[in-house]
Each structure stands twice: as C-alpha cells, then as structure tokens.
C-alpha cells in the first residue's frame, strides 16, 4: 500500500462559547493517499469543515482550540508547526477552495492580482511577466473565457461560477499535492455545479493532486470520490470506498442517509428522512451520539453508555463505528442494484 500523503490521528477541535464548550471535532483519524479523491460527508455541524480548517491553521484560536491530535504531512506535523512554517504550506503544497465564491475574493483588488499574489507569496523571485502569463494560463485551464481580459477585472464582474473557477485556479496556482475543497458547489446553481465539478476533475488530472472533497451532497460524492468518510457530531462513523459505502453501508446513519435519498428509477410513496435533528455539540448525547435517532439501537443500553469505536466492517478498508454494525451485514441499500443505462462512474 502506498504511503499516505496526509495522516491524521485523534484530531480534536473545540470552541469556547457563551453557552459552553463546543466539541466540533471529537477525535478523528484518517489517511489521504496521493492522487485520490476523498469525500467527507455530513450534515451541518458534523465537523467536516472544521477538521480541514484546523489542518491549515485557519481556526481562530480564541475561541477555537486544537485540543489534541497530529496531522503528518510530508514528514511534518501540521498541527505543531509555528505559524510561519505553516504559512509556507498554505497555498503552496496544501490549498483550499471555499464554499462561497461571492465573498471569497477581495472586492477591491483585481482578480489577476489576487491570483498572482498566491504565486508571489511563495515564489517571490519569479519575474512578473512569467507570473502574469501563468495566471492567464491558469484561468484558461479552469475554463474562464477570455482570460487575458478577465485578468484585469474585479470580482464583481465575474459570475458566481466564474468566481469559483478563479478560486480553484488560485488554489492550484502552485501545484499543491493536497487540495481541500470545502463545499465548493453548495452556493451555486445546479447547472453551474456540474461545470465546476468538471473543472475540479480537470484540475485533478492536470496536477495529480490528492483532493479532500467536503460536501453534504451524496450525489457529488458518488460522482467524484474514490473513498468516503461519513461524519456525525464531530466523529467519523463510517469510512470506506465509494462503491461499498453506497451499496452496503454498515452504520445506521449512513443507511439513513442513503435511505432518505429519492430513487429515480422506482416509485416511492414516502420519503424516509432520519427522525430528529442533529445533536447539540455542547451537550452531546451520552455514548453513541446518534443513538437518539437510531433505528438499530432498539433501546439497548450499550448505545447509551459506550462510545463506539471505528472498527472493521466487512471488506478491506471499510470501517464503521457502531456497536451492532454486524446486524447490518447483508443489508443492501437501494443503490445496490446496478442502474440500467450506463451512468458512468
């Protein structure tokens, strides 16, 4: 097995608020391998964004705090680096694309300038004309029309989709080995979403970067990702490759998620949402955080008392954090039958 590019162990992030301490990320561990696309799925508040922002040191330190954990990347622990050293990685080897393109660009600076800034920060000796031509080339790569002219425009002259493309261009400007995309399409129209995802795929092919794709949209996961992590209430509840997770989930939350999706190839009378709402991260339910909403628990005290660990579910590289995950063996989600016409994976 290849060496992981990024190795996270026991990462915990908490926030101090007026109402108490929020345990946003409660001890997660995972690896990212070179060139793969890892999806992190979860509802709002599951800790998916916070975990990656912690890697780059983008959590404001009061009120946030990295309570514990290590994140080994290229031989260094990102969480223990000084701000100066961490800055060396940001935008160079590890880059991030954020959710809302409308507000993620400085409105009073030209787009070309902001892209060039990324390059010049890490490679200040590069001559200006080389930087400029690289910026134009990047814009062309992400599909921004007329890049020579667009380089001198301001962000408000770009449409939402174009801005997100510019953000992606900015992220890959220095050919990072790890690209983190935090809900890159959530704020966009569906048709634009598809385009931006295409751009992400193109970019991955060009740069061979590993990608962490954070989303709450299972459709995107199915289309883009090699492996998936499912997060709930700050913990990883299931991990595995995409096909296995979709066809044979082994955690009741994942089962519930998949179940709540409408299946377009059959008639369904009722949609089946997961009952209840996500738990408060200040007063988490005791034991397994999911137990108040779980169909598998059937009131068994173990779910209320013990926090389940991530352990092997059937299949290589497939883990689930449920005391009774074995009882889901043989359970096939509604996506386990192949769809008729080729959908292309």
């Amino acid at each position: 097995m290849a060496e992981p590019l990024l190795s996270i162990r026991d990462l915990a992030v908490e926030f101090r608020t007026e109402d108490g301490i929020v345990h946003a990320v409660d001890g997660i561990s995972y690896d990212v391998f070179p060139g793969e696309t890892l999806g992190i799925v979860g509802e709002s508040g599951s800790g998916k964004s916070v975990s990656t922002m912690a890697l780059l040191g983008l959590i404001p330190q009061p009120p946030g705090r990295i309570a514990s954990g290590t994140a080994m990347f290229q031989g260094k622990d990102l969480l223990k680096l000084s701000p100066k050293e961490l800055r060396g990685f940001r935008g160079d080897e590890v880059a991030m694309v954020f959710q809302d393109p409308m507000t993620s660009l400085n409105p009073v600076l030209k787009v070309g300038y902001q892209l060039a800034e990324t390059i010049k920060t890490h490679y200040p000796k590069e001559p200006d004309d080389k930087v400029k031509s690289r910026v134009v080339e990047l814009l062309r790569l992400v599909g921004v029309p007329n890049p020579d002219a667009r380089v001198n425009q301001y962000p408000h002259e770009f449409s939402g989709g174009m801005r997100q493309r510019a953000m992606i261009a900015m992220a890959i400007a220095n050919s990072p080995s790890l690209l983190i995309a935090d809900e890159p399409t959530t704020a966009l129209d569906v048709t634009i979403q598809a385009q931006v995802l295409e751009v992400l795929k193109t970019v991955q092919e060009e740069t061979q970067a590993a990608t962490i794709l954070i989303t709450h949209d299972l459709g995107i996961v199915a289309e883009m990702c090699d492996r998936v992590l499912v997060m709930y209430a700050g913990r990883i509840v299931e991990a595995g490759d995409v096909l296995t997770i979709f066809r044979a989930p082994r955690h009741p939350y994942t089962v519930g998620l998949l179940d709540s999706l409408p299946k377009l190839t059959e008639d369904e009378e009722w949609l089946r949402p997961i009952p209840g709402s996500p738990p408060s991260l200040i007063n988490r339910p005791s034991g397994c955080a999911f137990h108040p909403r779980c169909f598998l628990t059937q009131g068994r005290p173990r779910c209320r008392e013990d926090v389940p660990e991530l352990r092997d579910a059937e299949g290589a590289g497939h883990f689930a954090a449920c005391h009774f995950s074995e009882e889901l063996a043989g359970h096939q989600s509604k996506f386990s039958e192949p769809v008729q016409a080729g959908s292309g994976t």
Partner: protein
Amino acid sequence: MLTYIARRILYSIPVLLATSFLSFTFITKASDPLANLRANPRTNNPVILHHLAHIYHLDQSLPVRYWYWLQDVFVHKLGVSLLTSQPIWPDISVAIEHTLQIILLAQVIALVLGVAVGIYSAIRQYSPFDYAMTSISFLGYAMPTFWLALILQILFVDIYLKWHVRIFYTSGLNSGVTSSTWSIDRLQHIALPVATLTVVSFALYSRYMRATMLDVINSDYVRTARAKGLPERLVIFRHVVRNALIPIVTVSALQFGALLGGAIVTESIFQLNGMGYFFITRLQTNDVYSVMAYVMIVAITVITFNLLADVLYGYLDPRIRYD
C-alpha cells in the same frame, strides 16, 4: 462619473434655493432688522428709519426682498450687514480662513491617530490596549465639547496663575497684533481648541475604524488570503485595512463638511474669530443678513463635501460605479 457629478451639482441648485428661501422667510419674519437701531435712542428717528427701510427694500413684499437679497449675494458679494453697514464678505472670509486652519489641524490629527488606534485595537481585540482605547473613545464621544473646552481653559488658566507661564493660550487667536497663520504664537493660541475638536473626532474615527476592521477581518476573502499563505502583516494591511479605510474616508469628508459650519461652541469659549463665532455673535445681535450669508456658505459647504464623499467612495470601491 462626470455626468454623475454634473447631475448632483444641478440637483443641489434647487436645494440651495429652497434652503435659502426658507431661511430667508423665517429669519425676516422672525426678526426686525432695524431693531437695533430702534433700540438706540440716537438712531431712533422715524425719518432715518424710513429712509433706511427704503434703501434696504424693507418695505417691499417678501419675494421681492428675497430677489434683492439674491442679487446681493451674487453681484455684491453677499451684500451688506444692516447692523454695521459694512460689507459682509471680508468679515466672513477671514472667519472661514481661521476656522479652516483649526479644523484642518484637528481632523488630520484625529484621522491619523484614530485610524492607527482603530487598526491596532482591532488586531488586538479584547487586549488591555483595546479596552483602554475603547473606554477613552467612549468618554471622548460622550463629552460635550463645551465641557472639554472649559476644562482645558480652566486648567491652563490655573497653570498660568500658579506658575506664570503660558504654555497654551486660552482665548483669542493671537497676542496683540495679528500673527501670521502658522506662527508659533498662533499655534499656541489654537492648540487648545484644536485639542478639543480632535478628541471628539478621534473618538469617532477610532471606534468606526475598529468596527469596520472587525467586520472586514471576519470576512471570507480575508480567510482566503490567509489560506494562500500570506504573512499576517500583508493580510492586515493589503486586504483588511485597504477595505476598511473606504468608509472612513467618506465619513471624514462628511465630518469636515459639517465642521466647517464652525465649532460654534468651541470658538465662542476660546474667543476665536471663526465661522462659529461669526454665527453666534451675528445671531445674538440680530444681524440678519450676516446670518443669511453664514447659512448659505454652510449649506454650500455641506453639499459640496457630501458630493466629495460620494465621489471618493466611488473612486475607492470598484463595485460602485455611477453612470
């Protein structure tokens, strides 16, 4: 942009006319321009009064008088004071000059200090410095200028009486003969009024700058800048301050325009021959046309600086484009 400016200027003309007409109506209705002469037994002569009334068109109807007044403004440089029979313009132009000097100094100091303090307070939010500065700003903002001016005055009079040395003067613009605008003597005289005005403006600017900075610091594009690996110093100055300065520039332009009406109270306390002092003294003596002249100049100043503020804003923020 030019069409926008032209449009604004065009639009302000009816506003000025309306303001002047309203003020004129109110002032002439509410006061008797010849009251002072009537009160003085030497001049209280019906023949003189009748003659004067005729020369100054006081016996005509209101619109006619307004028309004559307008003519006076444009043709005769704001006309003549009924009280002193002296032309108004020379007096008021001197007053403008003096007020301008004081306000320029006060605003520049307040702006530089306020912006610096605001930036630092925002970067070190909740630090002792921040709390100290916020308290000072709060205090400065809450203090009526007349109170601060009087305290300063009392303080320095006290110093003089105790130690017989004048650090700063507490009244007037110069000792004895008219001093040149930037002489030490003049500066010693305007130091206290400038200090008074600076405090209030400083409070405003530093609070405003801090608030804007905090707003901007939490915005997404600053997060992006950090994610790119920019050193914090560049993040703050190239991204945060650049954006936060925009509203401050507009606010200061507006402030400047408003203050040119003269800090009425400060000037009276320190006996400075500026616009505010001009206004108050003419008001107290019912010198109607002088008051009108003052009103018109202030109105024009405010409108001009409002326009300047908008133009500056459009220049600095590329999202705003006037057609």
